[in-house]
């Protein structure tokens, strides 16, 4: 039996509460608040207390999907990544950099947001980058 607690930051609202995920044999089984969290000081809201519940949802996507003859079918990572990169390149070559647009996300990390806008700006050559800050 492998039991661990991992200190991390809540992924719901902008409060940024510190919480522990309880992990048993590679599965997140519970959440509890961190007493020294600077924002929450040992408290969580109803969403935070239950944040482990969506992680292992059976509806999670676990394989890349590619549309073939109108339906999304499971494919390998190589196939999905090659398709994505090739089509992005083809559209850039045919219609110019500004014919591509990117939505980064308020749900992913700073490091990931940085890479997306870097990809859009440095690789594709467009400033068409936005996310749902307004929504």
């Amino acid at each position, binding site marked *: 039996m492998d039991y661990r607690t991992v200190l991390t930051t809540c992924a719901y609202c*902008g409060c940024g509460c510190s919480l522990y995920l309880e992990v048993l044999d590679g599965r997140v089984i519970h959440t509890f608040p961190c007493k020294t969290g600077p924002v929450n000081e040992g408290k969580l809201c109803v969403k935070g207390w239950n944040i482990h519940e969506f992680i292992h949802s059976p509806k999670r996507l676990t394989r890349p999907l590619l549309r073939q003859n109108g339906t999304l079918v499971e494919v390998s990572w190589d196939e999905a990544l090659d398709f994505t990169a090739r089509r992005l390149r083809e559209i850039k070559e045919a219609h110019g950099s500004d014919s591509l647009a*990117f939505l980064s996300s308020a749900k992913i990390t700073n490091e990931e947001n940085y890479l997306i806008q870097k990809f859009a700006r440095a690789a594709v050559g467009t400033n068409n980058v936005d996310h749902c800050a307004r929504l």
Partner: protein
Amino acid sequence: MTNSIAELEDADCIFVIGSNTTSSHPLVATRIFRAKEKGARLVVADPRQIQLALKADLYVRQNLGTDVALLNGIMNVILTRNWHAQSFIDERTEGFDEFRKVIAGYPPERVAELTGVAASDIIQIAEWYAKAKAASIVYCMGITQHTTGVDNVKSLANLAMLTGQIGRESTGVNPLRGQNNVQGACDMGGLPNVYPAYQAVTIPDIQKKFQNAWAATTLSDKVGLTIPGMLSGLAQGSVRALYVVGENPMVSDPDVSHVKKALQKAELLVVQDIFLTPTAELAHVVLPGTSFAEKDGTFSNTERRVQRVRKAIEPLGNARPDWEIIMEVSTRFGYPMHYGSPAEIMEEIARVTPSYGGITFDRLDGPGLCWPCPDKEHPGTKFLHKGRFSRGKGLFHAIDYKPPAEIVDAEYPFWLTTGRVHVHYHTGTMTRNSPSLHAEMPEGHLEIHPEDAHRLTVRQGDRVRVISRRGEITAKVSLTTRVDRGVVFMPFHFVECCANILTNPAHDPIAKIPEYKVCAVQIEKAA
């Protein structure tokens, strides 16, 4: 936020406008309650009588979309009674005279007519806020999601500068960011006009700096498209490909029927997400990313605090961390990216992002760091604008009240406003897949005043058709005096009862934020 969350509990007066804090930011609400226990005065202005309103020393219900009028009225009272901070205005601001002329046109009696708030209440808010030793403004999307969103925010800044309630402990203008890392996404340049740390894409020196840092051949100096621009670009054919990471415009954007048509026209729609969202269902390729539990990194919260996200479990199935997916796509596209870990990406971020200059993963093992944190010795910044504003002098804006883009008429006689509920979050992809939260509220609803319900001959739980100029949905009604007569409210989390089929995509001319908080609808009892 200009100030930190913890400072709220030592304010003498807290003015909450357009934030349903107990539902959307519960752990900020905790600080507001603590402030009240310590004797602070709490003023709440909101078209809905939210939970916080029940605890307020003064609650006012302004008509939808009349925030500028209300704030100008408060400032008119402050000026005519000499409660303003003249020395602060002289030393630290500019544009005061022109601003003062506009404010003169908003005596409380006129404002009472525009806003529905009694003149005596306007005077009381002005007195409590202006005379407090430390007064704090807290706002959220109730201020920003309007065609006058920028005007609303500038009016709050005017109020804080007029009274000198900024640049000190427990004061300030404090927007509550709705998503865990919306602050970080903005800080990292996830915006069409700026690189990381809000460095403009149009400034040649800045462009040159990033061109060198990124070894890029050329960088565009043209401001890019916002989401509404991308969607109309898709509809018109000027945009051909859209790559969406962890967003769900098919539920979150206004006028969803228009969004769907636009997305269906894309030659290439790439969606990287953890669930097959309604947006992902339209994609040509879907890349399975990971949740926050399956990767390392950082989030930046609403008080600018950069905190660690730590990997607790391996990615589910064949899913991969989003940073790895982007590296792979970029490398295969022809722009190689090779980072060994998110910590290594942060090292690069710190080099090009002045406000994150001193942030490294090593330093984030404690309570995190609030930016600006320009160097490795800097302890971070608790509150902004101490002694001096970022732009030098604080600028007063002279702003007149403008009505919302759509107003009620004989055909669409009800005002509709939208928002969140306490157990759900944004488009529901996470909370609706959480059994405990789903059980609390499994479906959407329409809040309506009992007298309006009576006129429509509907009872609690009956279904109604809700119709706007954009589309039509059916919803169960919930009778409550939380909303005023003639006003209805819907949460926007529920795709099968989708408030954003109804909402108006009319947006603020500067921020491009849609007017989710106001549109006109017709309501009929469903057969």
